[in-house]
């Protein structure tokens, strides 16, 4: 309990730092720390799957994107018209936000006892899915349609990002070319870490059916390993018009849809699994989904294409 209070206060303190820091770079560093502390809070809330996702995706990969942006935008001019708002507006905003927080806190305190929950129903139906991790059961069975649509949402975000490519570079390579320095520390670290990271990523994905983990967490780690390898110059991004890249990106949602539609024939309907083969089908969906999400996340970090392949 004391630990929780201390952690909550620390989280708030780092959040204040993130808002109040003068320099955007410092604010982003604060945000990464905030995310890691939040992951700790998730562990305390008995949600290890979410903790993994928060640490890897919410803090790690998001942090990379924000850091990259803050370095590129550092020299932006802020014209006179966009000066920081005056003391009056800040005071008014502070009052408004205090009221909002207080109201929300009051609502939290009057939530009903005993709390309504779907845990018993989730537990009762898990045998039919063949899974041992209830969160995976929710994601891949009970609310599989949400997961399916969410993979499409990710892909759409990538398409939207690609749509920002200047026309001459369409179909080109995203991101800058990093050159590997054979004596450099980054290259050395990448050569060590990337293979290990890939194995860890695969393990976390694989073990997610019975223990904390799963496709999103595993995919994030795989994507992070690719990003590390690219930053160290060990690999370069592929041109985004390559058919095989598009197939990898689409494979996850496509297989998800196909097996879902097969449910009309094999089981009781869309995204229903026959009880005998439920776990097998779920794994058959998860493998391409993990690959697709890893590729999508990596490309989202890489950004829109900005150079053409050298012939």
């Amino acid at each position, binding site marked *: 309990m004391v630990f929780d209070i201390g952690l909550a206060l620390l989280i708030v303190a780092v959040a204040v730092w993130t808002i109040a820091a003068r320099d955007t770079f410092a604010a982003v560093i604060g945000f990464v720390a905030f995310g890691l502390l939040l992951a700790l809070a998730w562990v305390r809330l008995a949600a290890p799957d979410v903790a993994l996702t928060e640490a890897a995706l919410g803090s790690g990969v998001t942090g990379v994107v924000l850091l990259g942006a803050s370095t590129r935008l550092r020299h932006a001019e802020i014209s006179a018209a966009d000066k920081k708002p005056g003391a009056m507006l800040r005071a008014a905003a502070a009052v408004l936000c205090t009221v909002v927080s207080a109201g*929300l806190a009051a609502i939290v305190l009057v939530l009903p006892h005993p709390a309504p929950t779907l845990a018993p129903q989730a537990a009762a139906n898990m045998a039919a899915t063949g899974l041992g991790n209830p969160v995976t059961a929710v994601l891949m069975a009970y609310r599989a349609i949400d997961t399916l*649509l969410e993979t499409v949402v990710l892909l759409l975000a990538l398409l*939207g990002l690609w749509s920002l490519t200047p026309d001459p570079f369409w179909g080109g390579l995203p991101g800058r070319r990093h050159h590997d320095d054979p004596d450099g520390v980054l290259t050395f670290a990448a050569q060590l870490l990337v293979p290990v990271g890939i194995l860890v990523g695969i393990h976390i994905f694989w073990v997610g059916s019975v223990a904390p983990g799963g496709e999103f967490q595993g995919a994030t780690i795989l994507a992070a390993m690719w990003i590390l390898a690219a930053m160290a110059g060990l690999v370069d991004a592929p041109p985004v018009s390559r058919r095989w890249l598009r197939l990898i*990106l*689409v494979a996850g949602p*496509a297989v998800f*849809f196909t097996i879902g539609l097969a449910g009309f024939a094999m089981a009781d*309907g869309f995204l*229903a699994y026959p009880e005998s083969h439920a776990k097998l089908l779920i794994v058959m969906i998860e493998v391409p989904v993990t690959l697709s999400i890893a590729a999508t996340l990596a490309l989202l970090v890489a950004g829109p294409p900005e150079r053409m392949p050298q012939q």
Partner: protein
Amino acid sequence: MPHSTTAGGFLLVLAIVLPVAGMLLSLVLGGRHAQRVALILMPAELAVVLAIAFGVWRTHNLLQYFVGNWNPPLGVAFRADGLSAAMLVTAALLVCGIGLFARDQFSSPEQAETRAPLVFWTLLLAVWGALNAVFIGGDLFNLYVALELLTFAAVPLVSLDGRAETIAAALRYLLFALFGSILYLLAAVLFYGAYGTLDIILLSARIQPEPVAWAAISLMTAGLLAKAALYPFHLWLPPAHAGAPAPASAILSGLVVKAPFFLVIRLWFDIMPRMPEPAAAQVLGILGAAAILVGSVVALQQARLKLLIAYSTVAQIGYLFLMLPLAVKAETGHPWSTVAWTGGVLQAISHAFAKAAMFMAAGLIAEALGHDRIAGLAGIGRALPITVFAFALGGISLMGLPPSGGFIAKAMLLTAAVAEGQWWWAVIVLTGGLLAGGYVFLVLARALADPIEPLRLLTTVSPSRQAVVVALALCAVLLGFVPLRPSELLQIGRPAITTGLR
């Protein structure tokens, strides 16, 4: 009230699967084929949607599908009632029209894939799938994912031409939409924390008039208002809808901005009927009135045609929210049997067709003239008579003149306002109609004037595209033959307040 998947429920799955699968296929096959995939899918999906509407009408009950055969609250349900069916058919017709219109504008050269056509056709299919998911979703979190799908599909359409101003407009749109999403999520967690479910029908049975519920409803409504660009959250809409290419503006103003309004209806009439809040509904009506007045007045001041049409959208969205104070009743009556209910929905549908026609007409005019300055429109009425005629037909619906769907819709709102004794809404409706007349005639007068020097058109405008525009405008006019009384279709599947899934 069905307690399980109904016959024909699988059609609901198809309504979402087909456009999304098409989007995935387009992405893999590449830009040259994206257009073909889209154009092949359109009639197929239209057939699915018409089958859904027919099924709803024939059984006089809603179509329901439990995805994965998991019952709510553990699983997610799709539900199509009369309201869903009407919106699904409207979306399908609109997308088909847009597809035909944009065929020439976004065609790919045979050799290589280019950016704009690939992005346009895949995003058009994604928008369609997302809209259908919103119209048939029965679970609040599933609806959140559908709304995000819709936002991510719509935002890049705004910045499709890559100019700095459209990128800024797209970014502003995205930020407003994200703000709305966060409020919506906060509301969802409060609903779940208090009632243990996010299924709409179950929630309607469990909800109580207590602070948690009021907080959740306010937060969710505020979030949806930001996404629907209701005054005072309207600032993002005009630059975004004016900056998008004309076929994209048509779907953005026609339907994308109505999807959050659809969810406001779901929240206020499906989740809340046991605890009606007429006072809060008056607040929404006031915001709607402000939108009508501000949007119309600012539209009158615009120098560019597309911005004028976009501000007109801001105003017409205000009419939709007038439905709320007129249909929410203090006693637990049945709001969906009121004239106001039908009027509000009819306003949404006829505006979708009229606005799409107007944006597409403006697009043709801009292509022909090379600009869309209203002051420079002189002579276009003689050069592109069919296009200007279509614009005028759309304007008739906006003004609320007969025969048009807009006239019936506004007449219904007027009738309801007088019948309820809330005559102040009647004044707003009439004022709005006058102001709309003002800005429509502004454009038509310029278009029909004689030019100082003979007009030279930059390109020839194909008659088939003009025909599509007229067809959509005629849809708005044909809705004028809807009888002036509560619609039977729109009442199908409305929950009896005391029953529900257990």
